[in-house]
């Protein structure tokens, strides 16, 4: 579902439930979801995932306690 389609449906549902004050809150969530979907860690069926960060040797392993 696209974010635009989701937002329209969510706002309509909120109004049906008598919660018109949810509209600006849902618009805020839509912005956050847009950012989340744009992140480069998302996997795609047509593209192999690139590791955003190499697995580090943890400090716990590299340093005496």
């Amino acid at each position, binding site marked *: *579902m696209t974010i635009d389609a*989701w937002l329209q449906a*969510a706002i309509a*549902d*909120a109004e049906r439930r008598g*919660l018109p*004050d*949810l509209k600006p*809150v*849902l618009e*805020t*969530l839509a912005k*956050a*979801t847009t*950012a*989340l*979907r744009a*992140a480069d*860690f*998302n*996997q795609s069926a047509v593209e192999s995932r690139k590791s*955003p*960060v*190499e*697995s*580090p*040797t*943890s*400090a*716990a392993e*590299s340093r005496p*306690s």
Partner: protein
Amino acid sequence: MMTIEEFSRRLRAGEITSTQVTEECLRRIDADNARLNVFTLVMADEARRRAREADKEVASGTDRGPLHGVPISIKDIIDIRGVPTTASSRVREGHVAERDAPVIAHLRQAGAVLVGKTNLHEFAFGTTSEDSAFGAVKNPHDPGRSAGGSSGGSGASVAAGMALASIGTDTGGSVRIPAGVCGTVGLKPTLGEVSIDGVVPLSRTMDHVGPLTASVADASLVYHALLGDARTAPPVPMPMHGLRLAVPRKYFCDLLDDEVRARFDAALDRLRAAGAHVDEIEIRHAADIAPVYLHIVLSDAAAYHAHTLETMPERYTPAVRLRLEMGRYVMAEDYVRALAGREVLAREVDAALAQHDALVLPTLPIVAPPIGAATVEVGRGREPVRNVMLRLTQLFNVTGHPAVSIPAGPTSSGLPCGVQLVGCRHQTDVLLKVALACEPQITGVSVPRGGTSGG
């Protein structure tokens, strides 16, 4: 603020009794609670009885450890047998806890005196402790300002001398934020270390229980008591010379109040002067922290509250109800994306710590905001208060790394601000060693070290 270390030493030297100090805490609660709105329940009778028992035990040679006879307040989201756990919500009206949460049982075993339950942001879902069935918690440093949240009553109780320590919970910063704006130490241990059973959840995958105290050493004592290990003395500070610290300047220092920035930079200067190496590192996906956090916490909270949102929505405060309703619209595919982002962020923080003893960053970008403010001026514009207050703390709830906020001295307006140290996962004790070493440089005053004789 009397520290637990000082209390413990003087108790065993016969200079003070638990009864005297508990009475002083109760006197301050009586004097200031109506003004500051810190407690939802004062357990005066039980506190007096426990304090007398603690004094009798000391007289008879029984020593339960460093928390023996120490007056402690408890966030009203943690179960204490026989009293309500309100979560500062009318939704919980009529609730009485049937048993102690494990952390409460551990505190009792350690000899702590529970003075009462503290006010919070309803269901821990906010950063200001304003949306509460009991009304807003006021900051002891300026009652016109927020005490932070969600553990606002906990921070205020310690700052106002109503308890020597408090137990809070932290899902996005809710121990460290009130600690930062109230001028106390606040410790969020590693995710999963301290039991969250008997705690009303906000997000089961990001909730932590942790102490708010007057010093890092006290935080260590309470942390170990919460683990059921009440006899552990504070660790030895890590040597300052050669300590490796890293500042994640990009994103984390992009949006700071000028006075907070000045206090932070001054703390860094003192740390360098004391022998620490301070590097700069980058958390590459820092811009994704808020979306990742939001989709997880909203979904977790909505699942827990779905039934009561349908059956008694009018009992929630309006702002918290809206935020919980928002979570009911998160799509499953986006929740899964957030979980993927969580893994990436955890690896990036691990990588940042691989060559360093701790990350160092401000606890909040701002000082305590005025009560009622929806936005606050920071940097070049106005930002939503909630977003700004969570900005520097929520990452470590997502990743689970331990983090401690230490007071960095007052701004010119006399308001506290904090500096945060972050350590490796499952190495909270190592973080505390680093924090003990850095505390004098961060606060800008020397911290007297008084050993506890409690073992």
